[in-house]
């Protein structure tokens, strides 16, 4: 089922790349239309799964990725429509297409363990997924900021100079995405901690996964590192003037950690989040 959105994301990616290279407005509109089609079909997929299992798909290892891509597509579309800037699409769509390939080719069974019932778990996962989607946007915006910054500094005004919005706009978008991401990351972590404390006090305390939920578990540990990185970035931007290029680099580093936590750690290392 996840194959249909993947195909759309793939075609949209080609259209965005074409638009970026040629800057033909007709191609640009076609690219957006294709992405809207991808997001709609993806909404359908996520909606069907939700109706089937009774909650937003997030507990299977790969279905969470699908939900993440869906949120990312919606966030990006929101940014494109509000800023009227299409240049970012060519940077963010490869990420969507690559991540969407995982659930498309390795569908997971959506089972919600007994221990995962309750509203807190849903809030925990969905806010974290949304935070990660925001960080993905921040990372992509940050990369484009650095590309443009380097062109202007090098006094060689070429490819990106003619295609990207201004540094100021990119910086503002980056900061905005990080603030939103940070809020949801914080919320997700706090709710997760409360939920873990409840689970430990309840009848599922003997579940080995619940017992593994400590700060030393790789998944939880890396998530906290993430939080520290983004907290520092927000602090640095406001207090010591670390905006611009440094903030852009930090958001790239932060998102690399997120991605690392999201895919390999979930698969191979985490004992606590192995549902």
């Amino acid at each position, binding site marked *: 089922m996840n194959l249909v959105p993947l195909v759309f994301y793939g075609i949209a990616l080609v259209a965005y790349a074409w638009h970026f290279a040629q800057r033909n407005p007709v191609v640009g509109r076609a690219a957006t239309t294709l992405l809207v089609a991808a997001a709609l079909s993806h909404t359908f997929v996520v909606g069907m799964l939700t109706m089937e299992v009774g909650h937003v798909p997030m507990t299977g290892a790969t279905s969470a990725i699908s939900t993440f891509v869906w949120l990312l597509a919606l966030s990006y579309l929101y940014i494109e429509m509000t800023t009227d800037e299409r240049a970012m699409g060519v940077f963010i769509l490869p990420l969507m297409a690559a991540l969407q390939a995982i659930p498309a080719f390795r569908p997971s069974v959506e089972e919600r363990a007994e221990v995962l019932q309750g509203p807190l778990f849903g809030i925990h996962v969905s806010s974290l997924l949304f935070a990660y989607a925001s960080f993905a946007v921040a990372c992509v915006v940050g990369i484009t900021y650095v590309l443009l910054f380097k062109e202007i500094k090098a*006094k060689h*005004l070429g490819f990106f100079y*003619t295609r990207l919005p201004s540094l*100021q706009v990119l910086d503002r978008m980056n900061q905005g995405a990080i603030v939103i991401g940070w809020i949801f990351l914080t919320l997700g972590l706090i709710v997760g901690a409360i939920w873990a404390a409840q689970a430990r006090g309840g009848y599922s305390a003997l579940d080995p996964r619940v017992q593994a939920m400590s700060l030393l578990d790789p998944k939880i540990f890396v998530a906290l590192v993430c939080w520290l990185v983004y907290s520092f970035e927000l602090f640095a931007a406001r207090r010591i003037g670390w905006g*611009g*290029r440094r903030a852009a680099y930090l958001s790239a580093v932060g998102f690399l950690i997120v991605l690392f936590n999201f895919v390999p750690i979930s698969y191979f290392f985490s004992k606590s989040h192995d549902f």
Partner: protein
Amino acid sequence: MHLLLVGINHRTAPVELRERVDFHARGLHTALNALASRGSAREAVVVSTCNRAELYVACDDPAATRRDLVHFVSEFNGVPSGDVTTHMYEVNDLEVARHLFRVAAGLDSLVMGEPQILGQVKDAHTAAGEARTAGPVLNRLFHASFGVGKRVRTETALGSGAVSVSYAAVALARKIFGDLDGRHVAVIGAGEMGKLTALHMKSQAVKHVTIVSRTMSHAARTAEAIGGASAAPWEELDSVVGACDIVITATGAAAAILTKARIASIMRPRRNRPLFIIDIAMPRDVEPAAGEIEQVFLYNIDDLQATVRENLARRASEVSRAETIVGEEVDRFAAWYRSRGVIPTVVALRERFEAIRRAELERLHFKLSTLPPEARARVDEITHLIIEKLLLTPTEQLKALNDADTAGAYSEALARLFGLTEEELRKVEPFTRNRPNRR
């Protein structure tokens, strides 16, 4: 009907001659009326800018019209025809379309791809419309040229990138800051260069311009001349620079005023706010190493000129794509233009058929008059429909011929077969222009 263009432009004529051949001087309408009253052209549009003066006409006898147009140009502008003819070019039929399309696309401009020319071509056509000298052929031609201009602008990068130093500076500022309203600009140096740059910035709707000069009275005078700008004494240089977003330096100082260390200390309290410094002084006012400071974007006049050269080179690389568009549009116009060649034949044929029908009805008038009125109306309708149906296919086939020679042969054959006279053929396409009564 033939298309004809005679004119001079920046490539064929020196500026002294272009200044003298200026149809705007006495008003475009006067020129159009004067041209129309000569009667050598059926339709006319005059495109007159500082880089070109071109007469686009539709006429029956290109050779005679050409001679008359040369006389017109020299008489109207008071320039001896000998001076004009050596610099004048003549273009015929479909090459006129190609020429106009290239002009509208900015391919024929002094600065490749400049956007003003399309507006000037539109104005020229509007003026001809008002003076009622433009007819179906030139209307079609000029509307097609607007489409070419638009296509080239949206589908190629021919018009992209600033091609003058001051526009390059403004474009750069926009790439750094986004919009410029709300930005503060400081101009250091109250000389002519500084004043011009400050004026240019002011026209970009920046929030405030401050002028700093070694002599306060000098700064104040320049600030007043610009209007809406303020002056600051030399001692406040650091604080003025610290408070603004864009700095333009244009002093006559022999050594650098803003060293790297000085700018670094100015930048510290600004934290992360970008500072765009444009150094247009010779010798330079800003130490080049200052550009290494994070968030300082330093460009001097050479850098700006280099970006202008790059933009010009990029425009040049887009020329072949723009020429392809021009070629496509010429082909499209050509199909319409050639189909027009058969129009006199089509109309004459239709009139011949209609005349026969009327004659027959007339002849049978006595017999038909015994019928009730509805029946007579029906007879009229049926005979009309028969003619329409008989002519439908031949008309379509004729109009589909997009090769002038074939179309000519077919027209010739039809004229022979149906005995259409020269007179009948020439009766169509009367002057589209309602001549104003002038005594």
